[in-house]
Every structure is written in structure tokens, then in C-alpha cells.
């Protein structure tokens, strides 16, 4: 593609991103704000594709736009009306209006200053000719990593510690969510059209998750994208009135949520016992070990995201009778 066409595409994408961000943040209607934010996420996914970051584009489309949007919309749906309209306390505004205007200006100036500092730092980073020390190290060692997708190699091999800790962050978040209280109210059973859609959408999503997991070794994909796709299947089931939302039985739930961290630690400690460094895979085994960890991580991420959508601890009875048909 010639450079002028590329520049036109860039200008269009950046313009759309900025206007969608402004629109999503400026509106006082929460529902509109969430939907504009989802549109922002989708345009962002296109921008990642343009900047040659297909792994990030997949994750953004599935998580940034899809699941975040579903989470936020469910929260909008639940919030009482008065909380949505913002300043509803009468008499509160007028007394402090001049103070409020001053505060708004001060915060706006602070934000302009933040943007200025960031732009200055970024310009300094761009001005230095890229040395690419890390990128070079990745491409030099890619052959020994067990996978040929450099992003997967960084996530699961070179910087496996980071991913282990990230899964621990996810586990902490989901335990926090479950400690906060019971899940939000369920949805009514779906009508025949949505039911028909669920019938083929859920198997396709599960198949796609498996494909993304497998293909992540040598092409864009991996545990995060696969986990998000699997979670989407759970969210669809929940929206159709299936109370278990595809989660495993109660006694397996905690194990599933912790599966990523558990598998990571099991592999790391076994390697340590065999006299290798923690998470220092032997090159011959690296591919298989990465797939093993990614499979566990995918299940944990999917369960975490479904629980995040439920917004709390699911009722034990919903999970133990998952064979039970939807209430009609």
C-alpha cells in the first residue's frame, strides 16, 4: 500500500479514536457512555491491526471491547436511576459552584500538564534511534523458546515470571469479587430466536477458543485470547438464562480459578527439583510445557472473566445442578 493511503487510514483511525473517547467521556448518560466506549475499543482493535500488533488486536476485540462492555452494561442495568443521573442532590450544586468551576479548571490544567510531560517523554523515546536490545534478544533466542510466535515466547518463556504474577493478580481480583457478595440477579430464559443462536454460537466459541490456544504457538493467539473467547461462551449462556453460565461444579470452581497459578508453580517447582532454574524450560520440552501452562491459564482466565461478569459468588446450587434445564 502506498504511503499516502496509509497516512489517510492513520488519520482516520486517530480521529475516530479521539472523537469516540471524547464522546464516551462527555456524555452524562451511562448507557450511552458504555456503548461509545465499546465502539472505541473496536476502533482501537483496528488500530492495533494497523500497527502490526495482531495479538493485541485479538485481545482488545475480545476483552477490551467485548467483555469490558458486557461487564459495564450489566452494571448500568443494575444501578438505580438516581445513581446514574449524577448530581441529583438539590441545593448542593449552587452553594459550591464557583469552587467547583475552579476545581474543574485546576484538574483540566493538571491533565494538560500530564499530556505535555508524556508527549515530551515519548518524543525523547522516539528521537533516540531504536537500539532494539530486547527485540534482538527475543529474535536471537526464539528458536530455543519452544514456540515461534514472539509474543507468546515473551509471555510464557522469556518473561514467564511476569505472566505468573499476572495470573496471581487475576486470582486476587476474582477472590475479591467473590468475597464481595452473591452474584447479581439472573436473566430470564431466552426467546426462541436467541435460544437458536445460543445453540450454535456456544459450540463455535468453544471451538474457536481451542483453535486460538493451539495456534498461539506460531501465530497470533494464545491463552488470553482463548480464555476471553471461552468466557464469551459463558456470558452468552448466562444471558440466555442458563444459571451456571458454563462454570464447573462448585467443588471444582476454586481449583479452576486457581488453575493457571497452580500449573505455573507446579511446572516451575518441578523444574527446580530437576536442577534447572525456576521456569527455565529445557528447550526440547519448552513447547509442550508452554501448551500445558497455557491450557490451565485459559481455563482460569475464562472462569475468572465469567465470575467477573456474574459480579459475585455464584449460588452453590446453580453450579451443582448444571444438568438442570433453564427455568422456563
Amino acid at each position, binding site marked *: 500500500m502506498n504511503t499516502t493511503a*496509509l497516512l489517510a487510514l492513520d488519520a482516520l483511525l486517530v480521529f475516530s479514536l479521539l472523537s469516540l473517547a471524547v464522546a464516551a467521556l462527555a456524555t452524562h448518560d451511562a448507557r450511552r457512555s458504555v456503548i461509545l466506549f465499546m465502539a472505541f475499543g473496536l476502533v482501537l482493535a483496528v488500530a492495533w491491526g494497523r500497527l502490526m500488533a495482531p495479538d493485541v488486536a485479538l485481545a482488545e476485540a475480545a*476483552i477490551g471491547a467485548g467483555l469490558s462492555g458486557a461487564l459495564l452494561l450489566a452494571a448500568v442495568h443494575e*444501578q438505580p436511576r438516581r445513581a446514574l443521573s449524577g448530581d441529583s442532590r438539590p441545593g448542593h450544586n449552587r452553594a459550591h459552584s464557583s469552587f467547583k468551576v475552579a476545581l474543574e479548571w485546576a484538574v483540566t490544567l493538571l491533565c494538560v500538564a500530564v499530556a505535555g510531560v*508524556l508527549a515530551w517523554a515519548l518524543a525523547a523515546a*522516539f528521537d533516540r534511534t531504536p537500539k532494539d536490545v530486547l527485540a534482538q534478544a527475543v529474535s536471537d533466542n526464539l528458536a530455543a523458546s519452544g514456540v515461534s510466535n*514472539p509474543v507468546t515466547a515473551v*509471555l510464557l518463556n522469556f518473561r514467564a515470571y511476569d505472566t505468573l504474577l*499476572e495470573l496471581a493478580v487475576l486470582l486476587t481480583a476474582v477472590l475479591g469479587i467473590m468475597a464481595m457478595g452473591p452474584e447479581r440477579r439472573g436473566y430470564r430464559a431466552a426467546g426462541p430466536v436467541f435460544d437458536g443462536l445460543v445453540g450454535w454460537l456456544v459450540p463455535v466459541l468453544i471451538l474457536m477458543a481451542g483453535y486460538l490456544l493451539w495456534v498461539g504457538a506460531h501465530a497470533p493467539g494464545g491463552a488470553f485470547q482463548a480464555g476471553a473467547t471461552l468466557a464469551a461462551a459463558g456470558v452468552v449462556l448466562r444471558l440466555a438464562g442458563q444459571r451456571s453460565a458454563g462454570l464447573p461444579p462448585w467443588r471444582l470452581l476454586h481449583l479452576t480459578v486457581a488453575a493457571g497459578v497452580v500449573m505455573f508453580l507446579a511446572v516451575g517447582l518441578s523444574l527446580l527439583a530437576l536442577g534447572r532454574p525456576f521456569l527455565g524450560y529445557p528447550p526440547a520440552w519448552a513447547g509442550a510445557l508452554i501448551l500445558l501452562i497455557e491450557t490451565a491459564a485459559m481455563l482460569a482466565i475464562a472462569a*475468572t472473566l465469567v465470575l467477573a461478569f456474574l459480579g*459475585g459468588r455464584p449460588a452453590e446450587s446453580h453450579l451443582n445442578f448444571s444438568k438442570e434445564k433453564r427455568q422456563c
Partner: protein
Amino acid sequence: MLTAHWLYGMSGCLIVALGLRTALLHAVLLQRLIGINVMGAGVFLMLIAVAYRGPGVAPDPVPHALVLTGIVVAVSATALALALGRRLSAEQDDE
């Protein structure tokens, strides 16, 4: 031609500022969260712009892995914040 990373990186800075302003000023938790998420998206734009090496050239995979991690952490933090907010409003309703 290296204008693309400037364009995306600088708009990333602007988007961070826009999100920060909403996160600090808005009265409603939900829109503050959207502000924080938009701010995160701006940071991701800066990182991916730094990784970009021009059309047809393989980009630096390390920032890509960072952003991938960031997206997943952002959604779990958002979910935790929503759960906290829900509990908070339930407590207030009880009073």
C-alpha cells in the same frame, strides 16, 4: 516514513489526559471507571507506538506482551471495582 508512530503515540498522550480528567472529576463511579479504562487505552497506544518499526518490519514483541497483560489486568480491576461499588451502594441502601 516514520510519521505513524508519532501520530498514534501523541494521540495516546491526549487520550490519557482525557481519561484522567474524567476519572478525577466525574461524580458517577461507572463513568470514572470508563475514564480509567480510556486512560489505560492511551498508555497502550503509547507502548504500541514505541514498538512500531514501520510497515512491513517486524515490531518489538516485548511491549506487545506488556499491553496484552495490561488489557487482562485492566478488565479484572474494572470488575473488582464494579463489585466493590455494588456492595457499597447496597450498604448505603440499607441505612
